[in-house]
């Protein structure tokens, strides 16, 4: 199809689709006019029932925790998939990058940048952990905290310590963290089956709402997700990084 024909076809269809969507959304209640029992009930009872003060966390990890199990495995599959798709580069081109040489640093960074980045690693790491373990209390949780955790090793990369990145985050432990997190989610679900009534049922003491150690499996699942996301994301980004590094070292030769 010519570029013009394609645009014509799309614009005609898009006009129809726009009308359809506008017409359909016109059937929704007015924005802000929320009356559904589902949300109202959960807002009213979830704190008492789950001891998690964050109702979103109660939905994500308790009432609809099974969706989140699927979500974890979507992430897991994507990490496997990216490794599958980017694999050949590594087989073909893997050579010790010069960055690995003891006295070498990528030329672009200054010491100030380097120190700033490295200085940030520890606080960011702590911040990530904080977000993960407070997911049932306040906004945040395993996913958000996991992403923050994953940025800590990347800062080391920006700071020029690729060597450091490799020592801090070698692949095997990362795989283990990711696998333990993802598999852990299933195992916690199975514990509900074993000790409780059903899969993903809470089998742990709930504690008091508002405490850091409370809400039973919601906290445990948050930890599992935090591990899975942090491990998975670092692996995913290093898949892209490996290639970049290899290429960078080649172009400098």
């Amino acid at each position, binding site marked *: 199809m010519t570029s013009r024909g394609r645009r014509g076809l799309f614009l005609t269809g898009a006009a129809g689709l726009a009308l359809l969507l506008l017409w359909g959304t016109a059937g929704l209640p007015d924005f802000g006019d929320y009356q559904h029992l589902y949300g109202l009930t959960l807002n009213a009872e979830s704190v008492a029932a789950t001891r998690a003060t964050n109702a979103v966390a109660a939905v994500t990890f308790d009432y609809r925790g099974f969706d989140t199990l699927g979500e974890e495995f979507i992430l897991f599959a994507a990490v496997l998939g990216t490794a599958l798709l980017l694999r050949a580069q590594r087989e073909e081109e893997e050579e010790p990058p010069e960055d690995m040489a003891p006295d070498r640093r990528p030329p672009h960074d200054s010491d100030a940048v380097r120190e700033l980045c490295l200085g940030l690693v520890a606080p960011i790491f702590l911040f990530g952990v904080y977000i993960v373990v407070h997911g049932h209390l306040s906004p945040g949780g395993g996913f958000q905290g996991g*992403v923050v955790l994953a940025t800590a090793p*990347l800062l080391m990369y920006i700071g020029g310590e690729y060597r450091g990145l490799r020592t801090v985050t070698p692949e095997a432990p990362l795989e283990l963290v990711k696998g333990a997190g993802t598999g852990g989610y299933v195992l916690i679900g199975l514990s509900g089956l074993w000790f409780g009534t059903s899969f993903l049922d809470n089998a742990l003491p709930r504690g008091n709402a508002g405490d850091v150690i409370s809400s039973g499996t919601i906290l445990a699942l948050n930890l599992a997700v935090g591990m899975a996301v942090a491990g998975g994301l670092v692996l995913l980004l290093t898949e892209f*990084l490996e290639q970049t590094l290899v290429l960078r070292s080649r172009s400098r030769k």
Partner: protein
Amino acid sequence: MDATAILQAFVLLLVAATATGVILTRDPLAQAITVSFFGLLLAIAFLAFQAPDVALSAIAVGAVALPLMILLALAKIRGGAE
């Protein structure tokens, strides 16, 4: 219209405008920056919708992880083209 509604309307219109900008930025490198800005605006819109959890993930993903992946992919491709 109260203050919340005005804020929400304002942010939503900004989101729409930025999305147009993201689409029309043809250079992927520049787009990595506009999409990061778009992610931030989305996060603000989610805050205005009283969804801080979603706002946090929008920042983590939209403003950090996605632009980072784009930059890495571009680095790889530019590297290969040299």
